[in-house]
Structure formats: structure tokens, C-alpha cells
């Protein structure tokens, strides 16, 4: 079976800095693949290359076997890929419901693009569903800019899911969350694999070990190791480069 996401020899440099260099791995369908590595290892840059935020200088990105290398973000989105951002990126002047609906609107047939928004029934239904699932229903009319950090992080995941993607890229979803919120988010991410393939960036090693099916370790732009959580943890190179500092 073709892997849902196939990264081949991907690379990009900023001036002389090889931020991502010769990275290859695959994400298997309905599994959680976690990318770990110290600060500046190139994890977020890797996400930027996959999602189309940046164009790679070399290598390929295949989504479901289709070459999407260097495709614009709206095209990777159309191919079924949703992503979140390390620094929350939402529409702070719109309400919670409006944010979700904007994302869910891609589910509607094109013919409804110029009809009143109240006719977009699928997007409306999806919005309601996401509000319930993420316990944001009581905040549906709040401006996103007024939400707490934890709520914004949760909404960010909800917005990514509202378009029913095949692949979900989450860049440190639990960053800055309270202990309780982190646990709840981990639980939520675990429950996602029925519908989507998850590619995760996460710093909390405990979470990485309990959540991941597959771990890719990055260091200075390169892939240092990959494998199951236990195999990766036992790898001496990984221990030196990563756990050594942890």
C-alpha cells in the first residue's frame, strides 16, 4: 500500500544554513508519526516544506503517491492535508464558530460559494459537530482573540479537522498548555487516528513515548534515527544528541 505521506530526500537551506537536509521517511495511514528533536532541529521547517509554506530546494513530497513537491498551501490542502502552527494562527477578529465554518466551507459544493452563507448546510453542521466535540459550544460566539491560550490551541486543532483532512500536521499542539489540558489533548490526538493520519511535533518525551506509533528524530536538519518509540529511545546517537540534553 502506498504510504499516505512519503518524504524523499527533502532539503532546504537558509543562506548557508541547511535547515532541513536529506530527510526521508514515510507516514503510515491511521498512525501517529512524531517528529522530535532539539530546538532548531528543523522540525517546523519540515512541516513548512510538506504543507507548501516553503518550497524545498531538493527532494520530493508525495501525498497518496501524488507528487506535491512545492505545491502552494491551498493545493496541499485540497490534496487532504491540514496543518496547525507552532504559534497559534487563527482569525482573532472572527468568532469561534466563524473560524470553524471558514475551514469547513471547503466541504461544500462550489455551487454554494455565491449563495447566502446560511445555505451552506454541510459546513454549518460540521461547525456544530466540532463545537460539541471540542467543548467549545458555549463559546461559539466569542471572538477568538478573547479566548484563553488553551482554548485557542484546542480550537486550532478543531479548525484543522473541520475540513475533514486525510493528513493532519500538528506542530507542538500542547505547547504552553496546563498539565490537565495537555493530557486531554493527548487523549484527543489518540482518538483522531480513526479518521486521519497524524504527523506530530512534540517536546514532551513522556507524551511522545505513549502516543507515537513511529518516531523520527531530527538533529541539525538531518534525520538522526527513526523507528518505534522504544527502538528510538534505545539508540545511542539519539541519546547523545537529544535525551542527553533533555
Amino acid at each position, binding site marked *: 500500500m502506498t504510504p499516505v505521506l512519503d518524504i524523499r530526500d527533502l532539503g532546504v537551506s537558509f543562506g548557508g544554513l541547511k535547515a532541513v537536509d536529506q530527510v526521508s521517511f514515510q507516514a503510515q495511514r491511521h498512525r501517529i508519526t512524531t517528529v522530535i528533536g532539539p530546538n532548531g532541529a528543523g522540525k517546523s521547517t519540515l512541516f513548512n516544506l510538506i504543507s507548501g509554506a516553503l518550497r524545498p530546494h531538493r527532494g520530493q513530497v508525495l501525498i497518496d503517491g501524488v507528487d506535491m513537491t512545492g505545491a502552494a498551501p*491551498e493545493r496541499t*490542502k485540497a490534496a487532504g492535508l491540514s496543518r496547525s*502552527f507552532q504559534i497559534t494562527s487563527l482569525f482573532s477578529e*472572527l468568532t469561534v464558530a466563524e473560524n470553524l*465554518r471558514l475551514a469547513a*466551507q471547503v466541504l461544500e459544493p462550489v455551487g454554494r460559494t455565491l449563495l447566502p*452563507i446560511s445555505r451552506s448546510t454541510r459546513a454549518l453542521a460540521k461547525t456544530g459537530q466540532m463545537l460539541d466535540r471540542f467543548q467549545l459550544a458555549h463559546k461559539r460566539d466569542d471572538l477568538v482573540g478573547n479566548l484563553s491560550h488553551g482554548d485557542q490551541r484546542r480550537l486550532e486543532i478543531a479548525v484543522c479537522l473541520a475540513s475533514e483532512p486525510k493528513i493532519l500536521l500538528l506542530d507542538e499542539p500542547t505547547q504552553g498548555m496546563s498539565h490537565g489540558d495537555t493530557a486531554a489533548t493527548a487523549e484527543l490526538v489518540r482518538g483522531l487516528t480513526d479518521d486521519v493520519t497524524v504527523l506530530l511535533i512534540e517536546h514532551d518525551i513522556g507524551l511522545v513515548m505513549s502516543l507515537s506509533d513511529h518516531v523520527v528524530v531530527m538533529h541539525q536538519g538531518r534525520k538522526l534515527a527513526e523507528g518505534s518509540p522504544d527502538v528510538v529511545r534505545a539508540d545511542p546517537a539519539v541519546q547523545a544528541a537529544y535525551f542527553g540534553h533533555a
Partner: protein
Amino acid sequence: MHDRLTQSMRASHLLALLFVLASLALAAMGTATDDTFYLRLGTEALIFAGLALSVDLLLGYSGVLSLGQALYFGIGAYVSALTLMKVPSFWLAMAAAFTASLLAAIIGGLIANRVRGVYFALITFGLAQVLAKVVYNTRELGSSDGMIGIPVIEIAFGPFSVSTGSPVGFFLIVLVVIMALYALTAYLLDTPFGRVLTALKSNERRVPFLGYSAWRARMAAYVLAGVVAGLSGALYPMLRGFVSPELMFFATSGNAVISVVLGGVGTLAGAIYGSVLLVILKSIIGSWTEHHLIVIGLIFMLCVLFLPKGLAGVLRPPVEAWLSRHRRIPGPVPDAPVLPAIAVDTKAAPQ
């Protein structure tokens, strides 16, 4: 399920309705007193309200400041004038102005949308100045004098007809056209298409990751705004019987921006109120002192400082509250901040 924008749009519609009622009252009074001056002044205010509407679509919804929207207004006016001198048909003039402003806005959009923020404001300003100068120096278009002698025409709708020379008749025609442009813009903003435009203002960078091309959305907003300005401009020579390069000058674009800020950015109805307010202010203050521009400038500054949401910012919340009490939908939430900061985006610099 109503959302915030749908609801604040309803408040805008109510304000627009009040505006129409007030205009009809003016028309009735004008007819009763056999007035020409105020009806003509009102007609002019309405025509410039169309230009303000187009500025508000860009500034208040897609979040970019155009300092050259008069470009499309002027193109509409000149094309309408040229058409009317050949064929005295209202519909043909409107169709020609529509086509010309559409094409011009596509070209202008391709140029201006390469950049963001301050650069966008500067490029739109530059485009308008360049074309104004070209017109200013083109003898076939009357050079600096503009073109005079545009005939009074009969506007026919089936069995009825109205003359552009009739103060009240033409006032009503212009009212219908401008309110139709308002209705069209408001309708489009309340569709999925329109929601992508408003998303641009809030966080343009996120838009492509939701699956929408930000560039296309920006182009769509720009072209729509250009056409709204062009159709409004097409009415101008019918009112005044002449066109001049001043219509494309910065003063015209700048007045439209001032109208929007006075009336309330991002409210559409506010742009119409603001435009009328500006015309009233100018004629009142102009009758006291010839330095009326200084006074208008001061009023503008005071408005930005103390009434940043403009007239509609004051009028709309109570209307929204009233509407929500009568429809039992969630109460109003504070409006989005107006006057988007013109962030200098390093990535947006010309490449």
C-alpha cells in the same frame, strides 16, 4: 443559526433603510419646494457614496487601504461621458463603464496585489496619479479642462422614462443604483466567498492553509471594488454634464477614505452616511470660510482619535442589540477593531 457578521450586516441594512427613507423624504421636500440645489447636492453625495462603498469593501473587509480608488471612478466617468456623447443611452453608458472598470481593475489588481500593506497603498496611489496625468495631457479627452457638453438624456425603463435633467428624477435613479451596489456588496460579503475576503483582513497568512487562494480572494475583492467605483463614476457626467481629470486625483480618493472613516470602517452603510456627512460638512463649512479643508482635516483627526469606529460605530451597536432582542439570537459582540494597522510585511516587499 446566525453569526456575528450576518447579524451586524442586518444592523447595517436597517441603517441603510433609514437612509433610503431620509432620502425619499428629501426627494418629497425637494419636489414640494421646487428645489434644485439640495437635490443636486444630494445626488452628488450619493454618487461619491458609491466610491466610498468601494473603499470600505477593501479597507473594512479585505483589509487593504487603497489610496487610488478614484482611478476606477474616473474611468467610469470618462467612459460614460464618451459613450453618452456618441449614443445618449443610460444603459449603454453603464455597460461601457462596467466593462472598462472591470478590465482596468483586473490590470490594476495584477499590479497592486503583488504587494501588501503600505506598498499596496502607495501603488494604488501611484496608479491613479499616473492615469490622471495621462488624461490631463490627452487632448482627445479634453486635457486639463476635461470634457464638457455631455447631453441630458432620457433614462428609459419600459414605458417609463426619467430625464437626467430632472433633479428629483435623477436623484431617485442614483439612489436606486447606489443602494443596488450596496445590496450587491452586502450580499456577496454574506456568502462563503465573502467570508474568505473578511478572513484576509484578520489573518491573510492562514487563509491558504484552509484551502483558499489568498491571491485570488484579494483579486476578487479588488475587482469588485473597482467595478463598484466605476459604476458610481458613470453617473457623474449625467449629473454634472462634464468630466475633468480632478475626478481621478488624490483628493477624490482621499475624500472617499475620509468618508469611510467618518462613517465607520467595515460597515458599508457607514460609507454612505460618511459620504453624505462629508458633503454636508463641506458645504456648511465652505459657506463660513474658504479654508474649509483645514476644518475638515481637523474633524477627520478628531474622529480618528475619539470616534475611531465612526458614525456607524456609534449607531450600529444599539441597532444590533435591538435586533437581537427582537429575534432572540445571541447579543452583539464588540465590532472587530477598525482601521487595520498597515503592517509593513517584509515578505510582502516587491520581489
